[in-house]
């Protein structure tokens, strides 16, 4: 018979200190895309043409990255190494231009609760990897509970709606109903490139589009799939708690 208590203790503490201390993904990890200066226009164009989800646009002799569309495949860097470089950056969360009223209200409400918040997840049409990375948040390496963040089954108890995947036609109504069942204030976080922008999927008969076609989205966490650290960063941004080691999101 397995002695789990002994095994658990013997394993020691594995949990990261992020976001209170700095963390890094391995150097080879493909997180963000950096557009390098001074390459030939032809090189920027080659990268732009190679990009399957059309995350790159040519602009004023260079290129611009729509981070919410990037699937982190690294193809731009391979075809145009002088113009693009993949970086191991993981703090990639995006917020709308204005800090949304919902985020402000949630911040005010959770402050007296020791900032404890509950998440409700809905898969709107994912490729199944985003779910596994969300699940990983609760493994001993990330241990989300240490930040006062918990999962809840009931939307009635939820503060944050975490949505994965591009929204399919069949999932649009269930997603809307879940959102409506949540009490105010509530915030919506789109997790994964497909949820943020549709990624490689365009709206057609099967697909409605990114989450913001259906619900007001407060924070977007791109990635294909986003690493658990990237999701923690997104949650931290959603709760308005960016610290010295967890950068404020790009507007």
């Amino acid at each position, binding site marked *: 018979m397995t002695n789990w208590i002994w095994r658990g203790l013997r394993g020691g503490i594995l949990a990261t200190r992020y976001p209170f201390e700095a963390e890094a993904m391995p150097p080879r990890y493909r997180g963000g895309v950096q557009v390098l200066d001074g390459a030939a226009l032809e090189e920027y164009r080659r990268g732009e043409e190679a990009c399957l989800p059309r995350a790159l646009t040519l602009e004023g002799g260079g290129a611009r990255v729509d981070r919410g569309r990037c699937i982190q495949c690294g193809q731009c860097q391979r075809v145009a190494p002088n113009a693009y470089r993949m970086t191991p950056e993981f703090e990639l969360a995006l917020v709308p231009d204005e800090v949304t009223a919902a985020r402000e209200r949630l911040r005010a409400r959770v402050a007296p609760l020791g900032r404890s918040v509950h998440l409700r997840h809905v898969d709107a049409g994912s490729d199944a990897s985003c779910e596994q990375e969300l*699940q990983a948040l609760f493994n001993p390496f990330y241990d989300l509970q240490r930040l006062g963040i918990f999962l809840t089954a009931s939307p009635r108890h939820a503060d944050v709606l975490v949505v994965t995947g591009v929204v399919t036609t069949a999932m649009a109504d269930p997603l809307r109903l879940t959102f409506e069942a949540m009490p105010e204030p509530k915030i919506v976080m789109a997790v994964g490139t497909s949820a943020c922008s549709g990624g490689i*999927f365009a709206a057609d008969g*099967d697909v409605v589009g990114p989450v913001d076609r259906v619900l007001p989205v407060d924070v977007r966490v791109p990635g294909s799939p986003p690493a658990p650290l990237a999701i923690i960063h997104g949650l931290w941004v959603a709760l308005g708690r960016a610290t010295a080691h967890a950068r404020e999101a790009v507007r």
Partner: protein
Amino acid sequence: MTAASRLDAREAARMAVERVRSGARFCWLYADARGEAVRLTYVTDGDDGLEAFTGAAGAGVDSIAERVPAAYWHEREARDRFGVAFTGLPDATPALPPPSADRLRRGQGEELSVVLYGPVRSGIVESMRWIIETAGEDFVHVHPAIYAKRRGVEERFAGVPLEVAPLVAEHVSGATAASHATAFSRAVEDALDLEVPPRARALRSALVELERVHQHLDALAKLAEDGSLAIGAAQLLAAKERVHRLLAEATGSRFARGVICVGGLRDDLAPPLLEAAERGLDEVERHAVAAVEGFFGTQSSMDRLIGTGRLAPDIVRELGGVGPVARGSGVSCDARLRDGWLYTPLQGDEALADGGDAYARARVRAVEMRRSFRLIRNALDSIPDGPVRSSVPVREGSAIARVESPQGELLYYVRLEGGAPARVAIRSASFANWPLFVPSLPGNIFTDFSFIEHSFGLIHAETDR
């Protein structure tokens, strides 16, 4: 293999049925439309490997579902998506009792209620709707309503340049991206008669086996969680995390995405993979094996699995089950036994169990995980020198390829036109296995549901596509 035969669809269907009668396994039926003309291809797996029978569906075709129940959902798809008229297509899978057949047997006075479970369910799970008929606590009939997550990925391939098309395959099931990218690339390579360099084959083998390790750990962790074995689940998930970290170090992606391409690999991953394996593979294996052994050493957890969700080998064969679900019922079905693409074939070492219950399926995963570590080492220990990619010609062609994904046999059909896919069809392991969920439930009670679900390890994204 290439799909070469050209017949009438009726003739093709007849030949497929004959093959199944003489002991072959029915794998797949897919439709491919060129303009108005729809062609059907029936795929079987026998002693000589995969065989495909293709014919024009123009004049309509007889349903073979009564004789070959495994063909039922494939015929439904061909009908609904391509308008093929199947004469005599039944209303429900013939091998299964129709919904509510038990109503009469249970006698009058006992009311059945219908419970809609999903598509939004508790926890971090994929969306799926189950329509459950119950008389209280026990399952009478369950009807999985698939396609909630249908994104049209097969259609998304059309016209995508081959250079980036494997990225679309990785979106079919991102959790098993290496298997999908390999299967797609293998089909294209066969269609183009392209030889993949041995170095790339060894690296692909290692990546697919690492994927098997993290997915089997995922399935076992969910079973541990279902039984409220908190520390066990945590240690299984921690072991899984170590695999993802190794992959991120070596490939730049925690799921090895963006590295497999047509002709081989995009980058030479051998140096970083060897370095990461040198530094961490022993430890990854030690933690994985310890967590799995601890789980199987916990009698209270095993009690929940033993006898739960039992599947007889006959129904597995009839409905065309694959992967650990089939092997848990003693039905041999491992593409690695016969497929030449692997750098280190299994050599007759198939993990089989004969209980047919959730325990047997978990056991198969545990044994396979250990063998995967051996296959990874075999591939990495003798990694051949040379290039990792062959140049890809622009040619027409079509082919079927298969890969043993963690969930089981995965089949891709690709037809190329002008250097890009014109039609891609996918028979995922989850698509083959979900109909088996229905006969595994009756006789079990509500609290068994999650154990049975997680013992199947279905990925709904690759079922719905």
